[in-house]
């Protein structure tokens, strides 16, 4: 079982397919859950503390806005953990404020630089593309199993 980073990190479809085909999806929920379940000092509305931008320094330079570094404190450890990635490139749900947009760019850049196996796709727009989409994900994930065995 490989740890597969999914982008968009909140994607239901990718999360489900990766888990369905026997791997562990790494998405935003895992990072958020870790913070939600850690006791500490409250910083509404999220359990993001002033410490997060400092932790984010590991993944982005100090000149990078703290909003990006704060987000990278969540995604960075997941990216380090990832053994493969599935990316949907035209995901129109992966939008947000400038902090989210720049973090998304940094996530994609980091993934492409990391050298792990990556599958890039577009969301299906009809049934035939749906078959191809699922087939491509299944084939990619099956290939990971073989790599792990070798």
């Amino acid at each position, binding site marked *: 079982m490989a740890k597969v980073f999914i982008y968009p990190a909140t994607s239901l479809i990718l999360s489900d397919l990766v888990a369905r085909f026997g791997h562990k999806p790494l998405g935003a929920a*895992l990072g958020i859950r870790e913070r939600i379940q850690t006791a*500490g000092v409250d910083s509404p509305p999220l359990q993001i503390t002033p410490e997060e931008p400092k932790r984010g320094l590991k993944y982005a330079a100090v000149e990078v806005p703290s909003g990006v570094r704060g987000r990278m404190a969540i995604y960075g450890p997941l990216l380090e953990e990832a053994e493969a990635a599935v990316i949907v490139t035209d995901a129109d749900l992966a939008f947000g404020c400038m902090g989210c947009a720049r973090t998304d760019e940094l996530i994609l850049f980091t993934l492409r630089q990391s050298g792990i196996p990556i599958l890039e796709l577009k*969301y*299906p727009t009809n049934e035939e593309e749906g078959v191809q989409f699922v087939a491509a994900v299944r084939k990619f994930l099956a290939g990971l199993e073989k790599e792990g065995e070798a």
Partner: protein
Amino acid sequence: MAEYIPDYVGTVTKYVFVESPSMTPGELALRAYEASEGVLIKETCFGLQVTGEPESVDRLIEVIRAFDPSHIFVKDRGFPPGDPRRCRANLGGARPGYLGHEREFRILRYITRGLEELDRRGEEAEVPEPTPPAREKKPKLDIKRLQKLIETEES
């Protein structure tokens, strides 16, 4: 800043989405309750949220999926159910993340079709792969159109 004492420590929460012609979220909830064994289940308009010990949740998800494998989809959730930072009862509108779910829910039928078709064709069947998306440059905004937009905005 107040001290933060988290609820449901050590548990996992998962969303279960059902997009099926033969099963409603209410029916799925009833059947899930029968197999829950201590897992907290919350019925929603799209399916369920289940919260509990990781092993119990995994076991329940396995049982739930078996009801309608190609029409039931599962993903992790960071927040526990009813968390005031995410619960729409406190926010007065759609909860953050709702729009993403709505967008993906519309294309779940294509994924269902893919799962059913691959199931029918079997493991070895050849399926043409989608061509990898080319990273095309988006056409630049025409200067005349920009000028027009600015003028429209100003008037």
